[in-house]
């Protein structure tokens, strides 16, 4: 993938991805501010529209599909701010991406120290 080769299950956030993901990441950057978080929750469609998200990005946001957001150019550092609005932590997000429950994901993390 891209100029950097491919690692299975990994999406390199490089320049072209930063170009593609710019509107989505910019919207998530606005979630640093409480006003932005409230405005998103009050009218999600309008908020996405105002930041010029692509159709792919809007759909991924609407479906809360983390992998699709990453593939649409989302950076995990900014998606984390979106996850915060939804009350999710990084283990919840890890579970969503790997098809595990949060508890299974946490157990997976622990297992890696036992190898």
């Amino acid at each position, binding site marked *: 993938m891209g100029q950097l080769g491919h690692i299975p299950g990994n999406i390199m*956030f490089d320049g072209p991805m930063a170009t593609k993901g710019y509107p989505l990441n910019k919207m998530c950057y606005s979630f640093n501010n409480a006003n932005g978080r409230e405005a998103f929750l009050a009218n999600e469609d309008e908020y996405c529209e105002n930041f010029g998200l692509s159709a792919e990005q809007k759909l991924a946001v609407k479906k809360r599909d983390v992998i699709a957001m990453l593939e649409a150019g989302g*950076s*995990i550092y900014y998606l984390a701010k979106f996850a915060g609005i939804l009350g999710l932590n990084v283990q919840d997000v890890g579970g969503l991406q790997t098809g595990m429950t949060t508890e299974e994901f946490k157990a997976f993390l622990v297992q890696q120290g036992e190898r």
Partner: protein
Amino acid sequence: MAKILGGIATSHIPAIGVAMDQGLEQTPYWKDFFDAYPPVREWLYKQEPDIAVIFYNDHGLEFFHDRKPTFAIGAAALYENADEGWGIAEIPPVTGETELSWHIVNQLIEHEFDITVCQEMKVDHGLTVPLTLMWPGHKYGHIKVIPIAINCERHPMPKPSRCFDFGKAIGDAIRSYSGNQKVVVFGTGGLSHQLDGQRAGFINKPFDLYCMDKIVNEPEALTKFTNFDLVEQAGSQGVELNMWLAMRGALQGALTELHRSYHLPISNTGAGLQLLATTDAISKGSMLI
């Protein structure tokens, strides 16, 4: 001349800050992790550094993608923390040190590192969590801090070898500063972790332990890696090793490893803590600590 007393490498995971806010240090999940810190705090207490130079990465608080410096240094008298979007409590401002900042900037430019200089700069958990870990209860107001941000969020990012050389140039700059200031250098973040993609949750303990071994006396072995290697071996956020390499680059001469701890998982991460003292550290009795 200013002296570098040593280097400290530590994790900067936001969950650590939340755990400290909530007084969870002695709960089963956190106890082993936090129990590793008192010896390093004690060393700092005895060494009485005047200035902390902290390598960290900004996670989308100060820098968005509209302007994303590869290397940036603060030259402000004060650095504010702010809301990062997901609930970590804001902490009191961090004290800056403008004169040494400008000296470092001048020296870096002389030595081919054309750095971005920030006279205002919000600092995020990458910097504030290590400070809170070293001086609990937000008692870090006395120490002057120079924040140095390295891009670890968007490829292309500076190579491990370049980050090591960058740290070397900064170490040389500090040592060429007139005065008798005592400086401690921090490398924050790491070690292996991956937050994004189907590979989320990847941690590589053997690789982390290898890095902690090599960084003491053979850091050049780590500068052979590319950032792609680091992503492959240590996960997409494992590139934060670059900040440990910058810290290590700033140290010179014989080092004594006074403390080491590794714990996983903390949040999604292999969390390492390491204290490397230089010969300029003040000896207390037969031990440096």
